[in-house]
């Protein structure tokens, strides 16, 4: 499995310019008071860049050769989940460091506690996204996977729009209003635990899809 990590890290060199621009952009937020923006921005970039390695694997029918090498389908799936999650974690950590720098420079009024909460929620949120995007990308291929993800995102947006349009007529359930009273640490813990469960279920689905895949 080490060889797979080495391969994906080597492929990241091709994304050098994008990674550099993302890091430079995040540094601008050292001087701008936007709560933890660089955390979510870089975590998102980390996730997308990690997922892009799937396209490199499958480009020019590369899957046939790749899967003739000494690793199992399960190991490939584990590596991809860890690699993409590593991208999220690295991005969030770098963004966290930038945000702390912003506080230290006196450019941000955000508290350290609030920043940490943003960091945890970003990891959980993008963990959720990873759990959707990896099965789509590995199961349907990067091209189709992207399109399906875009359609799902569109449907969600449409649903939100419709809900907001009719929200005035629909009574908001009491448990939703009570969510505002939930302590922050409970909220962040539930987010992380939820992401962990979603990632586990997603991994099982992806592993099953990949075992049936032909190259």
């Amino acid at each position, binding site marked *: 499995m*080490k*060889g*797979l*990590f*080495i*391969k994906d890290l*080597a*492929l990241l060199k*091709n994304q050098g310019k994008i990674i550099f621009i993302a890091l430079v952009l995040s540094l601008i937020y050292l001087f701008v008071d936007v709560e933890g923006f660089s955390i979510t921005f870089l975590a998102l970039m980390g996730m997308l860049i990690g997922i892009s390695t799937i396209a*490199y*694997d499958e*480009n*020019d*029918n*590369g*899957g*046939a*050769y790749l*899967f*003739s*090498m*000494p*690793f*199992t389908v399960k190991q490939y799936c584990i590596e991809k989940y860890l690699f993409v999650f590593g991208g999220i974690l690295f991005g969030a950590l770098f963004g966290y460091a930038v945000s702390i720098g912003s506080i230290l420079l006196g450019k941000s009024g955000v508290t350290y506690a609030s920043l940490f909460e943003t960091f945890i929620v970003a990891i959980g949120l993008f963990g959720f996204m990873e759990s959707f995007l990896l099965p789509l990308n590995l199961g349907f291929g990067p091209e189709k996977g992207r399109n399906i993800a875009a359609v799902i995102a569109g449907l969600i947006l449409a649903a939100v729009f419709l809900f907001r349009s009719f929200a005035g007529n629909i009574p908001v359930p009491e448990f939703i209003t009570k969510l505002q009273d939930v302590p922050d640490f409970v909220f962040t813990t539930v987010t992380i635990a939820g992401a962990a469960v979603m990632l586990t279920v997603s991994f099982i689905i992806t592993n099953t899809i990949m075992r049936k895949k*032909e*190259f």
Partner: protein
Amino acid sequence: MLRIDNLTKTYGSFKMNISMEVTPGSIVGIIGPNGAGKSTAFKSILQLIRPESGSINLFGTEIGVAGEKMNTEMKNRIGVVFSDSGFSGYLNGKDVRNILKNMYKDFEEEKFDNYCRQLNIPMDKKLKEFSTGMKAKMRVIAALTHKADFLILDEPTAGLDVLARDEILDILREYMAEKDDRCILISSHISSDLENLCDELYMIKSGEIVLHEACDVLLSDYAILKVSEEEYGKIDKEHILRRRKENYGYMCMVRERRYYMENYPGIVIEKSSIDDLIQMMIKGENV
């Protein structure tokens, strides 16, 4: 080393059904036209596609339809070349070396570097910027440098010029000479490559093995008879495997060259090349 029995795989109207064997110490070639099923056979052996029925015994383990999944230990013992699949073009030679080093337990780094030098493979250039020949050489080098016992090579010389092909074939001979029980299963469109390299040949057509013979026998005992219709009417047809109608009469592929030379001294008997035999097997008709 490898034994395949009645392995079947269907793609629409195409159905592959093959049986074959590769014994330790031998080089076995598969030859046939495009779409005959060569790559399908290779991918079935490597479990990259799922056959519908049949058995595959590799290194003494059943890995066919009802068998086990190929484990990493087995994969470590195999070197693979696909003509249309390899490392991402965005990697360079150094990346490939580093990946192989961390992928295979017995990767031979020095040997990899030596081959790259010998075959003029640049280490800092991205694979997508390689010429077709360079890409082919890199694939072969990657397959040969982890002490594999068994090479599965699908068109390894595709896109190479004559000199480069010779270099690759020499390297394959060196590979075989290093250890007695190694073996190679190789496909190629270039029959002369297989003619000079292989111990045995399987000819495949529309998913079926239509001919299996030792290369020596193919070259010594098989022949092409060129006969008029009148001569055709008179000759013994027992050893005619295929015939094809020509302007002058018939072109016949026979197995017993000497028999026809001794008994029919008046007819044209040509020593057949592998290309001639392929032509006859593919385009000829049964007698």
